[in-house]
């Protein structure tokens, strides 16, 4: 009898536990329910909740949370729940939510947006209805985040890739400073020269992903592109020999000791840990919106130039691009509120005085002009750099990547390692990467 009692108690306890489990689930299921209930909820006078998510550095988290608080002060009936991540954690969280159709109302995306295309709400209607105010920017800035006429997000700022360098090290090494129309040949000579006279790296790594943006730029500088303009099953080039110069350059620099080997590069985990900051390298490859963080960490004057080219007057390979954007999830129950938040984030001057263009140079003219007028010397350097890019003009690089981009870039990074260790030649590596990329996308 006693055992029966215990058994029944156990059963009841389990049922209660199961019920609790079910309770926890209910709200998430409701969230995926649909988009239509927005208006009715707002009129009750209750608070509306939206979730905003992004990746970035601590600096970005602090500033963005401050802006979110400002927004909530201004609209007391809206509650914004921030969720922020380091770059790796963000994609893991987003992937899970994308599958569950429970993506945050407002979420940050980069050029890898095609992967999440099915989760993105197209913004054309919200813009047309005035929920997102774009009156202070030009059509070009909306087009950099558009996919064949459909606006998939609003750019949080524009940037361009370039080389940041430490002029003091150049002087110390007795190597002439780089200049606006420099070539890859000069770049190589400078990196080697600095290594010879100081024993440090002339060049740091080409970003976390050398098989990514810089390799593409090498192609665009030669008049082709890695990705096809609109067809995801084709490449933008038909001859692997376009890839060879980058493999050759990287092999020369690493084998001479003028750039970090793969093991050393792996240990550089963030922009604040770049060898340029610690004085172990003279140049590094960054996006312009990272320049302020780099200069702050280094705590001494740094400069930034566009990438070198194949000859002084050839194309630079890449225009100014959107660094990342805020998109609205199509599972959002409050798309109009989400739009209101984005509009505030883009247009409010006080908010942007806090953000300080940390995500890139703002696309709204009035915001950009205010920030530029108040800029400190290092921020001013970023504006000067973007100005330089506009003056030089870039090539027509595809705005967005390919859904298989990251696997192909990983292969490029593997081949870069193998070339450095003489396990393969630049020509063989180029051939293998070309064939691999074709086999993956077709």
């Amino acid at each position, binding site marked *: *009898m006693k055992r029966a009692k*215990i058994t029944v108690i156990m059963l009841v306890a389990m049922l209660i536990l199961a019920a609790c489990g079910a309770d926890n689930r209910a709200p998430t299921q409701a969230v995926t329910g649909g988009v239509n209930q927005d208006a009715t909820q707002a009129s009750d006078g209750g608070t509306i909740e939206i979730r905003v998510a992004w990746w970035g550095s601590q600096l970005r988290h602090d500033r963005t949370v401050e802006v979110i608080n400002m927004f909530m002060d201004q609209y007391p009936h809206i509650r914004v729940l921030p969720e922020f991540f380091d770059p790796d954690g963000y994609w893991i969280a987003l992937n899970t939510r994308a599958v569950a159709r429970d993506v945050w109302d407002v979420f940050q995306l980069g050029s890898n947006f095609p992967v999440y295309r099915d989760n993105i709400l197209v913004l054309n209607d919200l813009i047309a209805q005035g929920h997102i105010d774009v009156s202070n920017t030009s059509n070009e800035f909306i087009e950099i985040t558009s996919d064949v006429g459909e606006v998939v997000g609003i750019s949080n700022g524009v940037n361009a890739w370039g080389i940041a360098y430490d002029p003091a090290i150049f002087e110390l090494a007795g190597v002439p400073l780089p200049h606006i129309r420099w070539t890859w040949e000069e770049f190589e000579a400078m990196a080697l020269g600095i290594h010879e006279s100081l024993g440090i790296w002339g060049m740091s790594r080409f970003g976390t992903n050398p098989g990514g943006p810089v390799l593409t730029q090498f192609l665009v500088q030669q008049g082709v592109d890695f990705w096809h303009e609109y067809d995801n099953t084709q490449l933008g080039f038909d001859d692997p020999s376009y890839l060879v110069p980058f493999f050759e350059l990287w092999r020369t620099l690493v084998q001479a000791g003028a750039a970090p080997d793969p093991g050393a590069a*792996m240990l550089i985990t963030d922009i604040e840990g770049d060898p340029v900051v610690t004085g172990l390298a003279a140049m590094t490859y960054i996006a312009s919106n990272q320049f302020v963080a780099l200069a702050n960490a280094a705590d001494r004057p740094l400069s930034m130039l566009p990438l070198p080219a194949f000859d002084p007057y050839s194309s630079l390979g890449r225009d100014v691009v959107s660094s990342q954007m805020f998109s609205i999830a199509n599972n959002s129950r409050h798309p109009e509120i989400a739009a209101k938040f984005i509009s505030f984030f883009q247009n409010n001057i006080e908010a942007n005085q806090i953000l300080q263009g940390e995500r890139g140079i703002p696309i709204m003219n009035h915001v950009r002009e205010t920030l530029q007028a108040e800029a400190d010397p290092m921020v001013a350097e970023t504006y000067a750099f973007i100005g330089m890019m506009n003056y030089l003009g870039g090539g027509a690089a595809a705005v967005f990547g390919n859904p298989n981009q990251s696997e192909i870039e990983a292969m490029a990074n593997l081949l870069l*390692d193998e070339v450095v260790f003489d396990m393969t030649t630049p020509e063989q590596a180029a051939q293998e990467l070309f064939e691999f990329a074709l086999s993956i996308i077709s």
Partner: protein
Amino acid sequence: MKNIAVNKGKKPKSLSQFMDNETVAGYVFALPFIVGFLFLMAAPMALSFYYSFTEFDMLSTPTWVGLDNYVRMMNDRRFTGSVRVTFRFVFLSVPVRLVFGLMLAYVLTRKAAGVHFYRSVYYLPTLIGGSIAVALVWGQLFQRQGVVNVLFNAVGLEGVNWFGNPNTALYPLILMSVWQFGSSMLIFAAGLKDIPETYYEAAEIDGANKWHVFFRITLPCLSPIILYNLVMQTIAAFMTFTQAFIITGGGPANATNFLALYIYNHAFNWFNMGYASAMSWVLLMMVAVSTAIILKTSKKWTFYANE
């Protein structure tokens, strides 16, 4: 009891009798495990088996591709490379780890002052072993200007560029795994204590020296424990992931690209869930075959006192 019985129907005795039945109570108590097993183990395994025959990017519905994923593996040099790396890691790390575990267990089961303290200290690395923090520390120790190279320089040796060279990158990871010998040490220690004193006394009377005693008595009596540790550690070594993920990212030139890491990349970075599932099943087969070989050959070298 009465209330429930009354509410449930007309046969009050049958419910309590039913509940009183030993098999029912057993199932009820085992229910959490059964449910967990079905939904967290069996169902995902069945699904992954199905996915291994499909192309599946997690966002759209899987499409059936038959054996394509398995054929792709044969032509994927990154896969064959990662299989080689994984086997090299297993062959090098498991024996060294077991020898260390046994050595320390042997020392720490002797009656001496502070043995309990040392046993806890040596177990610590195992407690924190799989963590990201330790992997990060390990990465710093072995980097170019790391402590290990500083020590090398201090004794007049040239520093080694551990993670910058595909030929040396695996060794710090092996060493890190060897350092986590705690769990096998504990099991060895328990085994050592189980060996009857009388054997040792008899050996002493016969005039055997320490080496004889160790190789003729201790090792044979311990062989079933060695077998258990060998199997468990081999399985664990096949699934190594954290060290490579955190410290080397699989590089340089895929020299530390363990199969578990390669599977992870395909599944969660490149969205090739189908291919990743197929590779998981191959990994399972590799573990199963290795374990079977160990068990098969073990009959020749294990000794059971009661046989």
